[in-house]
């Protein structure tokens, strides 16, 4: 194995040193797999080896037994001379079985098997130099079946078990090379797999590094294969898009804050400069300072609203949720604003169902509806009717604040929930531009849904609280 692995010649940068490959999970897995597979091959080979060997030996014995029976028959028919003649004839043909015919004294009458075994039945005999005529067969043993014949003769029929040995060797050779191949293929495949795996992980790492380095627009390249890596890349890209969106949002908000605070700050500065003049009389000075304090209050109110939204959005308030009588909250808001609404020349209609309860934060819910009512109060012409409704539906409680004023164009209805967003025509009306974002944050905190609808004419804000 080379000390380094170059998985892709076309790409010059992905030069992965071997130790790292070896450390990858996929490599370890494939190595383990190769080892396991090798073990299996070994086991299977051993089983095949043993069964083949015993089958071969059995076959050999059967052949010898058959030959024995045949020769015994010859002996019974034609006597010892006939047997000797047949054995001599058979011995001459090479590659045949090996034989001996011994007289009662142990002298060989025919055949090429040496020796004079002292027992009957199966014996192992060394093959003599003349046996088989093979020079290499000197040390080999012959498997011989010795049987007694009438008249003290003995007949031996045997077979050189060298054949079985040769077969064994061949078999073991094949097994060893198969095993080697399996291991090489397993490890090699593992390396290839890990290299492919690493290449894709590296691609993700490089992208992440680039993003850490400051290039936030980078995204992970996708192969389009739809595999796990592709899915992962897509998910990571989506996450990056989301983060980028949030950052853009944050940047936008900071810009808006800066923009919205500049006006009261510069007015405050103007007032203070005015107060510095020496020729102001006490009354003028007082009014200038009052104006400065008012501007400071606007600034503080904006900050306070922003912090409040942030705190509501953090969601920690949910732990302080209690059972709240929403009907009472709406009624209190209606009651609180009724004189102001009437005095401004507008009308208030209240249609509130009794006993609608939910789990929430009473203070924030009051603020939610107060903000909505104030919005209608500031953005409708005198003579408008403001309607406050609360109804219980099977799966939710539906609260509604509606007016019959100018309404909001359909394409701007979602935008008004954003921080500092103001309709062009409302630029000049006082307010932080945070009222509806606060509403949106409180709605979200209560897992409710807000909808801005056309009241034909006017605006209808519908909030659905889960039951």
């Amino acid at each position, binding site marked *: 194995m080379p000390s380094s692995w170059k998985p892709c010649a076309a790409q010059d940068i992905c030069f992965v040193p071997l130790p790292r490959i070896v450390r990858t999970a996929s490599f370890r897995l494939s190595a383990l797999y190769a080892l396991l597979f090798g073990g299996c091959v070994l086991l299977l080979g051993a089983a095949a080896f043993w069964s083949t060997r015993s089958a071969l030996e059995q076959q050999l014995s059967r052949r010898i037994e058959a030959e024995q029976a045949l020769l015994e028959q010859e002996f019974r028919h034609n006597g010892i001379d006939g047997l000797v003649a047949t054995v001599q004839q058979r011995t001459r043909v090479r590659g045949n079985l090996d034989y001996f015919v011994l007289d009662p004294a142990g002298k060989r009458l025919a055949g090429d098997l040496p020796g004079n075994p002292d027992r009957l039945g199966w014996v192992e005999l060394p093959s003599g130099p003349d046996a088989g005529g093979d020079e290499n067969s000197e040390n080999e043993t012959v498997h011989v079946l010795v049987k007694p014949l009438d008249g003290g003769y003995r007949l031996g029929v045997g077979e050189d078990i060298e054949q079985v040995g040769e077969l064994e060797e061949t078999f073991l050779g094949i097994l060893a090379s198969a095993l080697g191949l399996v291991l090489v293929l397993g490890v090699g495949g593992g390396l290839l797999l890990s290299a492919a795996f690493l290449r894709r992980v590296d691609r993700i790492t490089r992208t992440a590094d680039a993003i850490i380095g400051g290039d936030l627009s980078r995204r992970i390249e996708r192969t389009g294969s739809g595999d796990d890596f592709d899915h992962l890349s897509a998910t990571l890209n989506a996450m990056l898009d989301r983060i980028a969106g949030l950052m853009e949002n944050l940047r936008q908000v900071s810009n808006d804050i800066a923009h919205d605070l500049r006006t009261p700050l510069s007015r405050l500065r103007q007032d203070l400069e005015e107060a510095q003049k020496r020729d102001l009389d006490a009354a003028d000075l007082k009014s200038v300072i009052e104006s400065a304090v008012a501007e400071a209050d606007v600034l503080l109110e904006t900050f306070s609203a922003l912090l409040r939204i942030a*705190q509501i959005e953090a969601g920690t308030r949910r732990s302080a949720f209690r059972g709240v009588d929403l009907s009472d909250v709406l009624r209190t808001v209606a009651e609180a604003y009724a004189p*102001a609404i009437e005095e401004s020349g507008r009308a208030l209609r209240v249609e509130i169902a009794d006993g609608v309860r939910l789990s929430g934060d009473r*203070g924030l819910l009051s603020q939610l509806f107060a903000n909505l009512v104030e919005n209608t109060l500031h953005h409708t012409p005198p003579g408008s009717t403001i309607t406050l409704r609360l109804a219980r539906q099977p799966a939710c409680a539906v609260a509604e604040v509606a007016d019959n004023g100018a309404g909001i164009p359909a394409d701007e209805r979602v935008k008004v929930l954003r921080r500092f967003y103001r309709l062009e025509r409302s630029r000049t009306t006082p307010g932080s531009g945070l009222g509806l974002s606060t509403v949106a944050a409180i709605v979200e905190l209560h897992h409710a849904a807000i909808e801005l609808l056309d009241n034909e004419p006017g605006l209808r804000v519908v909030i659905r609280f889960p039951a």
Partner: protein
Amino acid sequence: MKVLLIEDDVKTTAYVKRGLEEHGHVVDTAPNGRDGLFLAAGETYDVMIVDRMLPGLDGLGIVKTVRAAGVTTPVLFLTTMGGIEDRVEGLEVGDDYLVKPFAFAELLARINALARRPPIAQVLTILRVADLEMDLIGRKVRRAGREIDLQPREFRLLEYLMRNAGRVVTRTMLLERVWEFHFEPRTNIVETHISRLRAKIDRGFDAELLETVRGSGYLLRAPA
């Protein structure tokens, strides 16, 4: 009145101390929790003003320690703006809270209300200011013997004013106590309710009881 101010910001401390002293109060100050605890345990105060954000020991912890030692002095917490969570904790441990930055009139009105809060044991059933009389059990209001018809919320508003008779109560105090609104509305809802209440309790009588204190709030009192 003797006031203990536990506050680490030098400028705020000076501003509050000077303001309170101008109104004839005696002010002791402590820049941290340790000194504050020492003073609170050793002296008797009418009101304690405690900043929630102190170096070392948190304001809440100080008050808990002081209370555990049996000191029942009313406590007003100063909290940072937007700290809506502090409100709940502040009211559980202390008696009132005020969000920084605050107008001095607001602080003054609140500590006045705190210091003279009647002991809890003293249950009043009838409130009286000059010839104005409120029956808390019968839920009836009379002025010079003539019954005045009030809506429930107006009753609550008047009750709060009568309980604090002779002291200035601010808009914010009224919003919190009467409507439970813990935010600043952009609409003059308090003014509109006060003017309606005034129409009911003052119109047609020789003396006006409900005064508007410019830049501070409202004051219900018997005419001098």
